[in-house]
Each structure stands twice: as structure tokens, then as C-alpha cells.
């Protein structure tokens, strides 16, 4: 933990803490002869303790004055919700009257109302805002601050020229770039038509949607007599054409045809139902003044008084007190250190249990890395999960390592299915074999390996067959184009 200071220059005063050690304070005690005062070891120790206490008190006061703070830090909190971008079409046409208007609301008015309702209804969602006309404008980054979101939504108007849906979508997708996966992700897209997606950009868009794992909710807001996305396709039905072009993207899409405010709230409650997955979000714990160190320290010199020489019975009493205090002090220090260690383990265990371990940084024990990989895989980040597991290849004992290899195998196997790459199958096989070598009795490992081998053989057979077919067609082609043979005649 790095500490900061509000007034660092005040730390110069720390030098004052040395004063009690050098500034000998003498108090007049009347004695007939100094020679008869014995030199007492316990008194000397007590003197040192008292000086140390005084010094500590001065130091802690100075630290308090300098404002030693723990800087703000981010804390990961778990809840339910989604991480979504609200994307508004702000072309001039959004300024026209809305089909289901009760008192002459324009389409952009309705959009604003809906967005505000959404923001209020789902207080845990992390939302961002982007708008577009011919160009796209970044309005608000991902945030949970309802104050900021409402301040942004309230001032949105339809003043931009033109409509370029793909620019808008690109801007909305760019919000997810480099953003840690916090929960389920979506783009809520309010628009009234304009243009279809440009064909040449479709693949790029699709890739981005897949990479960031984003769902699309399209809320179509229409004029009075306009056809909607679910009406029969025709040359004039632009909404349907846009809908088809969005469908062609092949991303998870849900479209709504808002003809009246009721339909809009239907869309909202749908989203409400669907986007209920676990979400992790970061909040900032504000910086804290660490002044609470002070009182015990200042009290110490107030209780004792400095520099006295004691003798006789009183000395014996003091000796007992000092020893007991010392023992108590040592014991409590030990207890505190042990408590801190226990707390660390406890919080690590909790993180492992509820999945916040995904966010953990820095050195972790191998078991924690293992569970991090488990949660990453569970949230669909198989690449990061794989790299975490790979780092564990040579960590831990046989039992643990066999588990690591087994999980690696499973992940590679899954990935192989997803991406259809046979090289991943080989990696999976290798991992299973290694796991089995480490723990030959595990039934699960054997079963999975056998399954994989069977699958592989089948694949190889298929391949061979394909090759054979190919070579046959080749031969036929050769025949056809070899000079002298005419293959094209009956």
C-alpha cells in the first residue's frame, strides 16, 4: 500500500521526534548526597521506554498533521446488471412527431424519456452514451454516476445532419475496447431509420460484436404512417431493410417497433428481464486520513512522568508492572500480525468463492491462480484462462499439477470445438496424457482422453476420404485437359 501526504513539507518536523532522546530533562529532587542514590537498571529501562513513547507521540502527531492518507483505490463490487451503451440517432428527422405521441412529443423527446426511465429503473447498470448523425459523438464514458448520465440524457437534441448507422455502431462498440468484462454487455440503439448498414463494413462490425460479446437491442421509433420493421418488405419500407441488414450481421439482436409509449416500456421490461446476470463493477473508495494512530501514543507520556529514580518496594512494584506491560504489548503485537495474516487468507478465500479473484493482480498462490482460471473460463474468457493455467504448468505437487493439466486439456478441447482447429486437439491430447502420467488412476482423465482419441480417428478418416475424393476429381480434370484426350465430347 502506497501512502501519500497532503502537506509533505510538514514531514520535516519529524526531526522533532528525536528531541526526547537528546534533550535531557532534569528534575530537582532533594537528596542529602547523590552518592547514596543507587544506579537502578529498571529505572533506566523505564526512562528509555518513556522517551520512546514521547518520541512516538511527537512523530505520530506530525504524521497526522502532514495528512498521511491512503490514496483512493478501486474496489470491485458484485451485483446484478449489465454494461450497456445507449446509442441515440440524432439526425434531424428525430425532431419529427412520434407515431404514438399523446401531446405532440417528438421522437427525440420520447427517446430521452425512455433512456431516463431506463437509467432510473436499473441503478446498478454501467452505462455509456454515444450519439450520431453523419459522424458519431462520444458523450459519456461507462459510468454508474446517475447524476452524470441524467445530465447527459436531458440535453440531447436532434440537431445533427444525416444518419450513418455504421458510424454510430462503431462508436458504441469502441466503448468496450480494453474494458474489463464486467457482466453481460449490450448496445441499446434508438433510431428512426436513415440508411442501411454499408455492405463492406458488415464483416468488421460482426467481428467487433463477437470479440466484445455484445448484444444489440434496436428500438425503432417511427412516424405516424410509416411502415415498421415487422411489416411486409417493400421498396418503401426502409425500416424493414435496416432490420434485414442488422439481421445479416448475425449478432444477438432483438428489435422493437415502438408505436406508442406502452410499446416502449414493453421493450424496457424485456431488457430488464434478459439482462440480469452477475456484474462486477469498480467503485472508488475515497482516500482516508490515517489520524487514528494518535491517541494511544499521546496518552503514554501523559500517564507516566519522565526520568525518575525509584527505590525499595516501589521499584519492585514498578518492575512487575513494566514486565507485564511489555508482555502484554508483545502478545498483542503478535495477535495483530496473526490477525492481519488471517484476514488476508479470508479475503482471498472469499474472492475465490465469489469470483472476484478474476480482478486480482500481482503474485497469487498457485491455488488462487487456478481458481482465477476457472472463473475466467466460466465467464467465457478462455484465452486468458488458458494463459493463467499455462503459467501453472510447473507449480505445485503432483496432484495439483495433474488437475492443472486436466483442466488445460478440457479448455483446449472446448476451444478446438469452437474454432474447429485440429492443432488445438493435439494440445488437448498432450495435456490429458500429461495429467494421466501424473495421476494414472483418475477415471475422468482416461474417459476424456479416450473420447478425444475416438474423435480424432474419425476426423482423420474423414480427411482421408476427402483427400481421396479430391485426388479423383483431380485425375478427372487432368484427363480433361491433357492434350490428345478430349473429355468434353459425348
Amino acid at each position, binding site marked *: 500500500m502506497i501512502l501519500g501526504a497532503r*502537506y509533505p513539507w510538514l514531514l520535516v*518536523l519529524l526531526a*522533532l521526534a528525536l*528531541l*526526547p532522546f537528546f*534533550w535531557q*530533562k532534569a528534575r530537582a529532587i532533594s537528596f542529602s548526597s547523590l552518592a547514596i542514590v543507587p544506579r537502578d537498571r529498571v529505572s533506566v529501562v523505564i526512562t528509555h521506554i518513556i522517551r520512546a513513547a*514521547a518520541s512516538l*507521540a*511527537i512523530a505520530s*502527531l*506530525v504524521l*497526522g*498533521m502532514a*495528512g498521511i492518507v491512503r490514496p483512493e483505490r478501486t474496489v470491485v463490487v458484485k451485483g446484478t446488471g449489465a454494461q450497456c451503451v445507449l446509442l441515440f440517432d*440524432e439526425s434531424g428527422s428525430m425532431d419529427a412527431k412520434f407515431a404514438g405521441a399523446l401531446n405532440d412529443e417528438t421522437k427525440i423527446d420520447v427517446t430521452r424519456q425512455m433512456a431516463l426511465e431506463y437509467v432510473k429503473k436499473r441503478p446498478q447498470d454501467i452505462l455509456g452514451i454515444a*450519439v450520431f*448523425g*453523419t*459522424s*458519431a*459523438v*462520444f*458523450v*459519456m*464514458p461507462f*459510468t454508474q*454516476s446517475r*447524476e*452524470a448520465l441524467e*445530465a*447527459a440524457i*436531458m*440535453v*440531447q*437534441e436532434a*440537431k*445533427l*445532419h*444525416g444518419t450513418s448507422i455504421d458510424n454510430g455502431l462503431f462508436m458504441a462498440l469502441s466503448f468496450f475496447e480494453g474494458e474489463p468484462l464486467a457482466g453481460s454487455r449490450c448496445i441499446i440503439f434508438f433510431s428512426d431509420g436513415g440508411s442501411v448498414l454499408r455492405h463492406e463494413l458488415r464483416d468488421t462490425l460482426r467481428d467487433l460484436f463477437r470479440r466484445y460479446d455484445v448484444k444489440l437491442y434496436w428500438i425503432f421509433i417511427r412516424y405516424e404512417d410509416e411502415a415498421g420493421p415487422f411489416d411486409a418488405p417493400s421498396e418503401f419500407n426502409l425500416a424493414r431493410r435496416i432490420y434485414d441488414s442488422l439481421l445479416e450481421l448475425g449478432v444477438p439482436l432483438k428489435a422493437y417497433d415502438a408505436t406508442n409509449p406502452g410499446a416502449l416500456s414493453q421493450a424496457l421490461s424485456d431488457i430488464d428481464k434478459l439482462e440480469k446476470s452477475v456484474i462486477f463493477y469498480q467503485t472508488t473508495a475515497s482516500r482516508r*486520513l490515517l*489520524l*487514528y494512530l*494518535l*491517541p494511544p501514543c*499521546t*496518552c503514554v*507520556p*501523559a500517564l507516566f*512522568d*519522565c526520568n525518575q529514580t525509584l527505590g525499595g518496594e516501589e521499584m519492585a512494584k514498578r518492575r512487575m508492572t513494566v514486565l507485564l506491560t511489555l508482555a502484554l504489548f508483545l502478545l498483542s503485537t503478535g495477535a495483530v500480525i496473526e490477525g492481519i495474516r488471517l484476514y488476508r487468507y479470508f479475503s482471498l478465500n472469499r474472492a475465490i468463492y465469489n469470483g472476484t479473484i478474476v480482478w486480482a493482480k500481482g503474485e497469487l498462490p498457485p491455488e488462487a491462480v487456478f481458481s482465477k482460471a476457472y472463473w475466467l473460463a466460466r465467464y467465457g474468457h478462455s484465452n486468458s484462462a488458458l494463459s493463467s493455467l499455462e503459467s501453472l504448468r510447473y507449480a505445485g505437487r503432483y496432484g495439483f499439477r495433474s488437475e492443472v493439466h486436466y483442466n488445460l486439456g478440457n479448455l483446449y478441447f472446448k476451444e478446438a470445438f469452437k474454432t474447429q482447429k485440429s492443432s488445438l486437439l493435439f494440445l488437448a491430447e498432450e495435456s490429458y496424457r500429461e495429467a494421466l502420467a501424473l495421476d494414472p488412476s483418475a477415471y475422468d482423465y482416461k474417459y476424456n482422453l479416450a473420447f478425444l482419441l475416438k474423435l480424432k480417428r474419425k476426423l482423420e478418416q474423414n480427411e482421408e476420404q476427402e483427400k481421396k475424393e479430391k485426388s479423383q476429381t483431380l485425375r478427372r480434370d487432368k484427363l480433361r485437359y491433357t492434350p490428345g484426350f478430349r473429355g468434353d465430347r459425348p
Partner: protein
Amino acid sequence: MRLRERIFDFRLWCLVFSALLVSVALLNPKVHTKKSTYSFFVVFDITQSQNAEDMVLEGRAVSRLAFAKHVMRETLRDMPCGSSLGIGLFASAELVPLFKPIEVCRNFSEIDKVIEAIDWRMAWNDSSQVAFALYSAIARVKDWGLHKQTRVVFLSDGDETGSYAIPSEGFYVDSPAAVDTPPPFTLKKGEVRGLIVGVGGLVPAPIPRFDEFGKRAGFLSSQSRLDEKYLKKLAAETGLEYVRLESARQLSSVLKSQMFGELREAEIDIRLPLATAALFFLLLGVLL
């Protein structure tokens, strides 16, 4: 006898008093006073002339927009808690407000990220009608009912180019290349206060041109400079102040001057004086 001796020892009382002061400080009492806070609606010019690279930041030539962004981010760091800031963009004759003024400490990272993300590519049109954009920024603040506390901060180079728009009528007429008298201001002059900030050099600088992929492709045919004369005319027309942007510190000090601030109830921390007194008595008690 020893007890009595101790009770009358002033050093003991010094220590006790010191401990008392520290305990009071730990309770963190608050004293109420008045403190200046600010509210600004900052409008950035994102037209092409803002790409001219005639500003210097950390020894490098940067564009006017980059400089304006840097300065505003520094100013944001400098604003006391309780102040608020809103942001708008303008290109062509339209002003697009991004958000109303919001509190700067609670929403610091949000505002900072928005300023960082401002880019000339967000512009929806190539022309630049400074006067109309300024007028609508003022009108917007008035519409929101914030004219009493919020000041407009309008960052621009005063470069009136291209067609001349009459937004209320919805059509555009070609105007002579340079416009030197602002169109009439229809709102009440001086009702909304604020500052026009001139960004740019006084010597005409070439404006970089970008192709459709965002790569630099030479320069535009016309050059542009900071048109202070025009901006001053605009300031006179609307009752705003004018200042030429030099550095973050300069803008910050102008914005924090009395005329832009507003006194509000605020709490101050008195732990530091309490702790200082405690330290004094502790030293007395321990050392004397």
C-alpha cells in the same frame, strides 16, 4: 506528597491538554464558512481550423484542439469540490451539448474522459459559424435556467468560414470568405456571463487535411489564424469577457477570479490547527 507534587506540575497539565486537543481533533469538528465554487459550461470548437498546429505543449507543436483539451483537463483538476462543469461541442452552426454542468469531484473521471475523447472527427460538418454557435451556447444555458450561476466558457479561434447559416430558417447562404461583423445577438446582453477564450497563433498557420481513413494528406488551401478582433467584437455583442489562451495556469486563474466564482456554504477542516497546538503542548510537556 509525590501525588500533590505531580498535580501541581505544569508539565503534566501540558500533556493532558495536548491529549485533549488530539481527542477533539479526532472527533473532526467542522466549521462553516463561505467558499468560492464555480459552474462552467465549456464549449469546444471542433471545426477543421482547430487542427492547425500552432500551439506549443511541452516543447512540441500541437493542434489548437489538443492544446485546448490539455488546458481544460488541467483546469478541471484545479477546480474546488462543489464546482460543476458541463461540456458542449460545436461545428457548423450547431452546438451539441454533451451534458449539463455536473459536480466535478464526484464525476471527475467521467468529465476527464469526455474531454480526452473529444476529436475533430466527431464534427458533422466542415463549416464553422462561430457567432451562431456562441449564441446558441448562451441560449442553452438560459433555457436550462442556469444563467444565474453557470458561466459560458467558449474556446475558439474565431474562424468564420464557409457558408453562412440561418439555423432558425433552416437554410444556408454563401457568404464572402471572411466575415468581420457578427450577426445581431437577439438575447439580452450580459444576462448570461462568461468568457471567450481565443485559441491559436496570431500568424496564419496551415490547416492539415486528412483523408477518409484519418491519415494526413497535405494541407487545406486556406490558412487560419486566431481572429482576436472578431472574437472581441463577439464578446462586446454578447457581454462576455475575452482572453487569449496562453497556459493552463493562466486560464485557471482567470476562471477562478472573483467575477466567475460564487460564494457558497462550505465546511473547513480545523484538524490541522488543533494538531499543531497539540504538538506544541506535547513538546512543552516532554522537553521542559
